[in-house]
């Protein structure tokens, strides 16, 4: 026997109570892990985009279109290096419950602006030369089991074909990756020319312009110059960095981080009180035993460390189980979320953060009973006074 066994024995003396405490901690850390991963995935696109990349949308809001010819005029602005544009396609595959994150883009300029996109040369050529072809991010390709050469029917929630057909038949010409921005690997890109030829409305219009500049230091100046170019026109523009645009986009959906923080904090506060109170009761029940241990020569500091070890072990066990379950749940959810261009997975940061919170929880819930145990007078503990 050793003191670790003593700690384990004390924890297991009332199995139902310990199990219930474990379940409470498990739930708290499952919530923490799952929600924190969701939060990170949700915000992961905020900072995507090279610093020198700017986005121009309609000043009213980004769902309003811009004339495609704006691209040519932006290209003339001093300091702009490449300009591309894109339109939201609103695509889905087979079932509307399988929505796709799909844009109509100008392939040549798109690959210039998003220079981090990687695809084999022959696939690149195929995509650029076949107007009815699409380039699919590797995450989406993996999700649906698509490969280069496949022909897939994709319908749109927004656009109908001129010939009345609902589904577009697309050849998969390329499967790309983007190691610098893995969120992009969930996208599908079709040719904007093909899009324009086929749709029944909205031709020669785009949702946004995306362009690179010579230096991030000149972004403010260039953004102002671009917006000045279209001032007082029918479609005034709003230009900002890609990161700022993404942040604004996410912010429109609400303060997810605050909601998650409140949910997790509430769960933690409840668990703190439940576990803390239970630990106090559990140690109070052992008052006489603590007195006996001290009589045998156990120091107050040893008693303190034993009780703290119990609460830490309990918190860590519950937390690791909760975080482990969250890892599995997040991985399962990630298969769906990745289609939307997000990175839903358990990161080392979230897991270790959870372990850190567990240590804090263990220390806080064990502090009061451990301190009481350390200070307990033997004569009082044994009822001998």
């Amino acid at each position: 026997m050793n003191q670790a066994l003593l700690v384990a024995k004390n924890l297991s003396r009332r199995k139902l109570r310990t199990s219930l405490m474990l379940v409470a901690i498990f739930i708290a850390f499952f919530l923490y892990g799952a929600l924190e991963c969701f939060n990170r995935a949700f915000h992961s696109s905020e900072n995507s985009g090279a610093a020198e990349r700017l986005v121009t949308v309609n000043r009213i809001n980004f769902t309003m279109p811009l004339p495609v010819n704006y691209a040519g005029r932006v290209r003339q602005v001093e300091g702009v290096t490449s300009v591309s544009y894109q339109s939201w396609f609103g695509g889905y595959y087979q079932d509307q419950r399988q929505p796709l994150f799909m844009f109509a883009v100008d392939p040549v300029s798109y690959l210039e602006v998003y220079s981090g996109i990687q695809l084999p040369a022959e696939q690149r050529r195929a995509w650029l030369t076949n107007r009815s072809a699409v380039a699919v991010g590797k995450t989406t390709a993996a999700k649906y089991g698509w490969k280069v050469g496949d022909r897939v029917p994709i319908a749109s929630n927004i656009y109908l074909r001129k010939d009345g057909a609902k589904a577009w038949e697309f050849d998969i010409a390329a499967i790309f990756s983007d190691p610098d921005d893995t969120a992009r690997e969930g996208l599908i890109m079709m040719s904007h020319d093909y899009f324009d030829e086929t749709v029944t409305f909205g031709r020669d219009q785009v949702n946004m312009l995306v362009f690179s500049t010579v230096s991030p230091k000149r972004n403010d100046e260039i953004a102002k110059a671009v917006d000045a170019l279209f001032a007082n026109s029918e479609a005034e523009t709003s230009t900002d960095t890609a990161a700022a645009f993404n942040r604004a986009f996410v912010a429109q959906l609400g303060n997810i981080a605050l909601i998650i923080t409140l949910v997790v904090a509430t769960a933690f506060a409840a668990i703190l009180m439940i576990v803390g109170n239970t630990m106090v009761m559990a140690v109070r029940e052992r008052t006489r035993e603590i007195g006996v241990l001290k009589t045998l020569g156990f120091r107050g500091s040893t008693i303190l460390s034993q009780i703290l070890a119990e609460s830490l072990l309990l918190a860590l066990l519950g937390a690791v189980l909760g975080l482990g379950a969250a890892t599995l749940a997040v991985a399962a959810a990630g298969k769906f979320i990745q289609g939307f261009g997000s990175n839903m997975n358990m990161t080392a940061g979230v897991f270790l953060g959870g372990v850190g919170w567990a240590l804090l929880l263990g220390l806080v819930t064990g502090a009061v009973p451990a301190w009481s145990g350390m200070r307990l007078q033997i004569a009082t503990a044994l009822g001998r006074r």
Partner: protein
Amino acid sequence: MSDPFSFQLRQVSKRFVKGKETITIFDGLDLDIPAGDFVAIMGPSGSGKTTLLNLLGGIDHVTSGEILFDDRRVDTLTENQLSAWRAANVGFIFQFYNLMPVLTAAQNVELPLLLTNLGRKERRTNVATALELVGLSDRAAHYPREMSGGQQQRVAIARAIVSDPQVLLCDEPTGDLDRSTADEVLGILKLLNQEHGKTVVVVTHDPEVTRHTRRTLHLNKGVFEEKTALA
């Protein structure tokens, strides 16, 4: 040269403050307990028996006076020093055994050895020896709930002696046992005193205990009334 003493109490006073009232338990108490003594301390409830045992075991502090153990003062030791002193020199036996319910008999006996530098093997040997001495080798793997009161008290005795302390302090060790079991327990204490040289101090209400001890001290209102001669 006089016999060595386990304990010497010199002008010991003990007072408790309860609210506005100060209760005096001892006021200038003197007591010598020679090494190897087997002494019963008897007296009515509230006479100070348990308080005296607490003072001897260093689990309570004197208000004034001195307590010497092996000619060294223990009343001035800090809590941590007292813990170490108790672990090395004193074994406690209680009326209600006070075994850890989650530990087996062997694990209960091993508890004091966790504070020593002994290796696992040595600890096991010592535990086996102690259990054998109290006749419970076959109960090593049993939990307290699986044993009778007498067996539990014998485990408690094994726990008290496993680290080979010089002194055993016993608080009503037979108070919860029937006569025949009580006699068995007293027999073990007598054996430990006579064969192993332990100094045994027993606080008790049980007059039968005095049949086994070398002498009996009668405590009343914090004062020893009479002392029986050494047996």
